[in-house]
């Protein structure tokens, strides 16, 4: 009797357990597909950019694209030199980083090494908001507040569209980005290092810049690199405030177009699908993708290094 009962019970349990295992497999498969979809996104980005760019480079040789100094693809006599767009992109990023790196780094050192916990807790969320403001709003601010302000005070001859105010505002936007990654890196430096330094008679400032900052250097470099990548890819601020004429200039007081601003400009027009003009935005996009990819990968490895260090 007991034996047959046990067998009956066994018979019921087994299919249920099998069904359960089956269900687990299905769930795991579904979750795996979701994770894999992120790789799929990257692959399709690369595929689409490369596919359309190959079409583009069938019409315009790569050497001309990289060396010609005029970018007028939508004119009657089109020229396809990416250099002016590249120049505008680098110039605006340079201005932005000239603001964001010093302000971001000093803020990070202050928040991590000097500030009382209360100040830190209060300031950090507000700083985060700074990077959450829609970029189109920053564009408005750069064009209709910062430029007039600069014109009225230190640069009377400044044109209405210029790289300077776009870059300045972009820099402010990137501060929280740089300061939060740098601060994470600084706080990952073990207290013993600082205590050692204090024991040798060093002050807070000396300890910060001779012990904590060097120890956190790879993380801080990662912050800079990721900040640059952010500046290079920023679109709306430059599209609104920097003007949209591509020009080969290194003077931030002049208007210039970036790669991103050009893509926006073309997208606002009405280019037929498949035309060379339509393909230019993919060729320009591929350029942008490669630049940011290089910075992001460098940032990734730098960040991983500081995580492993201690």
């Amino acid at each position, binding site marked *: 009797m007991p034996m047959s009962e046990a067998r009956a019970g066994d018979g019921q349990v087994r299919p249920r357990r099998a069904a359960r295992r089956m269900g687990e497999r299905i769930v795991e498969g579904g979750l795996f597909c979701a*994770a894999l979809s992120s790789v799929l996104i990257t692959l399709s980005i690369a595929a689409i950019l490369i596919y359309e760019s190959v079409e583009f480079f069938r019409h315009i040789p790569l050497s001309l694209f990289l060396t010609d100094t005029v970018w007028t693809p939508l004119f009657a006599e089109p020229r396809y030199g990416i250099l002016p767009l590249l120049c505008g992109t680098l110039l605006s990023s340079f201005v932005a980083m000239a603001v964001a790196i010093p302000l971001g780094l000093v803020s990070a050192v202050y928040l991590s090494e000097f*500030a009382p916990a209360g100040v830190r807790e209060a300031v950090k969320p507000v700083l985060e908001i700074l990077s959450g403001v829609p970029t189109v709003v920053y564009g408005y601010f750069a064009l209709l507040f910062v430029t007039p302000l600069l014109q009225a005070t230190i640069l009377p001859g400044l044109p209405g569209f210029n790289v300077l105010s776009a870059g300045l505002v972009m820099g402010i936007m990137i501060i929280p980005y740089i300061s939060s990654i740098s601060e994470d890196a600084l706080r990952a430096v073990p207290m013993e290092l600082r205590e050692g330094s204090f024991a040798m008679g060093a002050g807070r400032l000396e300890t910060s810049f001779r012990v904590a900052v060097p120890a956190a250097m790879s993380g801080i470099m990662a912050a800079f690199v990721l900040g640059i990548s952010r500046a290079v890819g920023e679109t709306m601020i430059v599209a609104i405030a920097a003007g949209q004429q591509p020009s080969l200039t290194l003077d931030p007081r002049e208007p210039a177009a970036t790669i991103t601003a050009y893509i926006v400009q073309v*997208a606002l027009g009405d280019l037929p699908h498949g035309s060379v003009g339509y393909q230019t935005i993919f060729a320009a996009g591929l350029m942008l993708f490669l630049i940011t990819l290089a910075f992001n990968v460098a940032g990734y490895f730098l960040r991983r290094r500081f995580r492993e260090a201690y």
Partner: protein
Amino acid sequence: MAAGAATSVRRVRESGLISRKRRKDRLFAALGLACLAVALATLALLVVSLAADGLSRLSWDFFMSYPSRFASRAGVLPAWVGSVLVLAVTALMGIPLGIAAGIYLEEYAPKNWLTDIIEINVTNLAGIPSIIYGLLALGLFVYALNLGTSILTGGLTLALLILPVVIVATREAIRAIPMSIREAAYSVGSTKWQLVSHHLLPYSTPSIMTGVIIGLSRAIGETAPLITIGALTFIAFLPAPPIQPEFPFVSFRWLFDPFTVLPIPMFNWVSRPGRDFAGNAAAAGLVLLIITLAMNAAAIYLRYHFRKRIKW
């Protein structure tokens, strides 16, 4: 006596050194505060300048009017309706996908090269400029899949954009749950999915919500990718209503209608020569800013509230 004098001299000199160091420390602290003040003052100036230009334009009519050639009659009705619908698609697609991917990477993924690739890839996705997502959507959704410049395309584009944010938030939330919870669940015979669905997900919901809100607030302000896929700047009609009087009472035609979103009329107004439309742009910007600030505040509140309540 002499020895005592020497020590006291040294003490004086040392205290001079220390006070000099202290002074430098205080100077740097002041510099740090000044840097933070620059950042925060910019935020304040931004709000004030938007309010000064735009507050007078904010009215019921502004939200209930279509765009117009006359600055005083132009409104954002199609834009905010478009924003709501696009965001609904984004949330429906992006949140489940992101949470599922996060769960897999944190709880299921074996340590192998494929997992490594997925991880590096998610980090990289977060760093890709938003306009590149626009190019992807233009080539893939608009032309290859032939979805056109529709609300569906816009929503999918932004879903891709917030995916890394949701994935990272999910992973961090699940990682914060202590091992003992998992061990306890396994010890009473639960399967992995039971552990995830009965324990890990409910416990990490507040933190995941924080990430989701921040992702969505970014999606609301996102302009470049939607311009890239060809969202209209001037639109004088609303998408088809999702509810209809005849059977089957719900309609999904709106998914395939052309659209605009809140930042786009603002961009359009800012780009016009002359200052006629600047007030409108500022008003639209003010709306965007208030939504963003409110969502960020909600996220911060959630984070602090639950961090205080849950102590592992």
